[in-house]
């Protein structure tokens, strides 16, 4: 449900803020005309989004149209003529953008009315109603603070124009109208990233405005009421103060509800399931990891992490495949399709975090499909499970997490960290780090000279 709130807020809040600032200095139309024309513009925009082709040209055209429209809208703000065009155009464009997101397609999964569909529809309607209410309250506030509307206009404009310019640039580069350079790509990536923060940006602007209104309107009115002596003047001052306070409180409530909905979606509901606790294990000197079998066979997923000497973290887990007897499986916490996203246990089932597929528990340990990559050559010796180091090392390429650990430069004996070392060299199955190029070259030419005798014995 909160997904719809989040998608509608990010698509429509900046527009709401802009339109509130727009109407603050203009004589409004009647409520019916405004509501009906806005709803029609919105629906037309959503309808148009289905008609538009999906290609790169359409994206570029839409981006440029939106850019021009917004720039025109901002330029128009220097006049106070009333004009229904801007409201209709901005809402229609926002409708097109929202219609192109996957939100609408997931309203219902089947063709029969059901609970999910009604709840989703209700959240769509309430989200739009909340935007409308906020816009109306802001407009009322801004009528008393007309100069401050430029804060919303410039802020709201920037929230939309900056990511838009990145999008246009990206489209031009994709169509090869502009040459692809590192600086341009970096600019596009950074500005498009702002798109996800549009709702928070707009809410921050509104919160700023509310703070200004509290200082500039509510506070002086409170003082005026307290200072007023004559009975009638005092009563009028009180009414003015109470009205302002109600307006501010209403707007603050709506903003709070919006922050909660958006924050809940971003911080909780949209998150993938978190991996359970990881037990860190260290490799004994004989390069064979030994774990006691019995506590691992309770049917739950037991996750372990081993840190290789270059800082790479290899996660693996041990699970009992069968419910009625001991049948351990030792597998890496990664799959060939989804990478090192990992697996979680939900109830009695093991689920891939990457794609959500449920594993058939007895098949864990077999290769293929979405199954975790098996660890090879492990064996059970008495009460213990034995995993050779070489088997875990095959997993090094599957994981990307690197832990910062302290390493020693074998040439100079200097202590440094693996992530900050400028040079590294893999020799005889072990990675060595060097503080400078001279040490690196010296080691590369004659590695045996710098290694302790024990390590040389291992080398082939």
């Amino acid at each position, binding site marked *: 449900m909160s997904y719809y709130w989040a998608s509608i807020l990010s698509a429509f809040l900046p527009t709401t803020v802009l339109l509130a600032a727009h109407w603050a200095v203009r004589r409004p139309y009647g409520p019916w005309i405004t509501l009906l024309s806005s709803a029609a513009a919105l629906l037309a925009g959503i309808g148009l989004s289905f008609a538009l082709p999906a290609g790169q040209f359409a994206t570029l055209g839409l981006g440029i149209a939106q850019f021009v429209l917004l720039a025109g809208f901002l330029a128009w703000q220097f006049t106070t003529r009333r004009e229904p065009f801007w409201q209709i155009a901005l809402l229609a464009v926002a409708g097109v953008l929202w219609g192109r997101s996957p939100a609408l397609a*997931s309203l219902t999964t*089947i063709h029969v009315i*059901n609970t999910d569909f*009604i709840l989703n529809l209700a959240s769509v309607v309430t989200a739009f109603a909340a935007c409308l209410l906020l816009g109306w309250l802001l407009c009322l506030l801004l009528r008393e603070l007309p100069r401050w509307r430029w804060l919303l206009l410039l802020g709201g404009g920037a929230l939309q124009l900056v990511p838009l310019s990145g999008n246009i640039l990206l489209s031009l580069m994709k169509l090869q109208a502009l040459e692809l350079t590192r600086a341009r790509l970096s600019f596009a990536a950074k500005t498009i990233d702002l798109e996800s923060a549009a709702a928070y940006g707009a809410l921050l602007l509104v919160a700023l405005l509310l703070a200004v209104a509290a200082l500039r309107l509510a506070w002086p009115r409170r003082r005026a009421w307290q200072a007023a002596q004559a009975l009638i003047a005092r009563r009028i001052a009180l009414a003015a103060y109470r009205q302002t306070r109600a307006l501010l409180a209403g707007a603050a409530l709506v903003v709070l509800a919006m922050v909660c909905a958006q924050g809940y979606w971003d911080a909780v509901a949209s998150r993938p399931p978190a991996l359970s606790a990881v037990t860190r294990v260290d490799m004994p000197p004989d390069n064979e990891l030994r774990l006691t079998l019995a506590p691992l066979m309770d049917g739950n997923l037991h996750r372990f992490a081993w840190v290789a000497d270059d800082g790479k973290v290899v996660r693996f887990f041990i699970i009992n495949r069968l419910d009625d007897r001991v049948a351990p499986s030792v597998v890496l916490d990664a799959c060939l399709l989804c990478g090192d996203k990992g697996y979680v246990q939900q109830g009695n089932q093991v689920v891939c975090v990457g794609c959500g*597929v*449920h594993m*058939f528990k007895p098949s864990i340990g077999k290769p293929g499909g*979405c199954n975790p990559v098996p660890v090879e050559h492990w064996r059970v010796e008495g009460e213990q499970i034995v995993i050779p180091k070489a088997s875990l090392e095959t997993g090094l390429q599957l994981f990307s997490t690197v832990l910062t650990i302290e390493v020693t430069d074998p040439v100079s004996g200097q202590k440094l960290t693996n992530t900050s070392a400028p040079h590294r060299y893999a020799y005889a199955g072990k990675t060595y780090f060097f503080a400078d190029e001279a040490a690196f070259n010296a080691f590369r030419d004659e590695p045996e000279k710098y290694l302790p005798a024990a390590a040389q014995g291992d080398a082939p």
Partner: protein
Amino acid sequence: MMLRMLRQSWRRNPRRKLLAVATVFLAASLLSALMLVSIGIGDQMAKEMKSYGANILLEPAEQAVLPSLFGEGEDNPLAGQSTLQESELPNIVDIFWRNNIVGFAPLLNGEVAVDGHSVRVIGTFFDHVLAVADDPEYRTGQKIVSPYWQVDGAWPDDARAEALAGVALAGRHGWTPGTLLTVDGEALRITGILRSGGEEEEALVAPLARVQGWLDRPGRVGSVRVSALSVPENDLSRRAIRDPDALDAETYDQWYCTAYVSSIAHQLEEAVSGSIARPIWQVAASEGAIIEKIQWLLIMATCAALIAAAMGIASLMTSALIERAKEIGLMKALGAHDWRIALLFYAEAALNSVVGAVLGCLAGWGLARAIGWQLFGEALAFSWIVVPSVLLVSLFIALAGTWFPARRIVRLDPAEVLYGRQ
């Protein structure tokens, strides 16, 4: 003050209020009954689509040309004419998603003479050991695929001349666990009585190899039921169900490499030659199909009822306004705002509609149970979402019905009304 006026109004003219409540009640009971039926089945369908397990039926391609007309295919009058090869069954656990296949069971249908009666037989695996590529000890069969089968007695051994008798068939012939039958000149022991809730209750369920022998179709199977773990269907998988060839290369790979029922079914088709695989949706195929077809009819009927109710409320309100014109005039003369007087009427209508809607929900629930029994032979579950929806819609019709008459309040001139000129 407001509450007192409302109470007064109820006390003075309860008949009209009851009439308004009854209008809303009738519309609300119809609405809630239809919503309960539609939502009950819609929720079951959504649950099915969202579940992580599915059954897939593999059939010979020629047979599947007659689509779901005959239910799951085992009822198909042409069944047994075209078949799949038993030797290809191990391929099922050799597909990309082999680790998601929980198990499978072949089915072969036919009629044999048992002690002089013609009896329907189904050949299948119960708990069969089948050598597959990477597991010579692989076991599969109905014990895994149909966990809902209830067996009174013991499961048969696939290697021996043993069978299960469906509960209806066994009841007719008086068979019990331990009965010895003669089929095709050899003894067959009934080890258990089967309750499955399906057509197996009318048949003798025996190991596949025996049935192939009796029917003289060695090495053939009629269809295969595969049970698989899957990912819930979504937009991509629905597009793929319509036409996998219409996907571009990237989305095709994404679909193929995600454990949707449709992609598992697609790979099963590739693995067993001459076969068509389709997921068996229990609700979607039966009740869902009915509801999908009559849903628009339901919506239209409901809309008509709602409009009628709104008009009824409007006429009741109009007469109430005319009757209470003097009262309104007095309130106006005392300095009441138009909106305050209008609020009184709106509140009255809202109160009536809430009472009507709550009663309507109760009546609708009873009605929905009756419809459920009539149409599907089972009672439908009560979905809580119906209550707020019906309340909201009833409130809407009451307010819409009051809106037109309430505009007259503005036009009333206190002096004229109080003199009785209007």
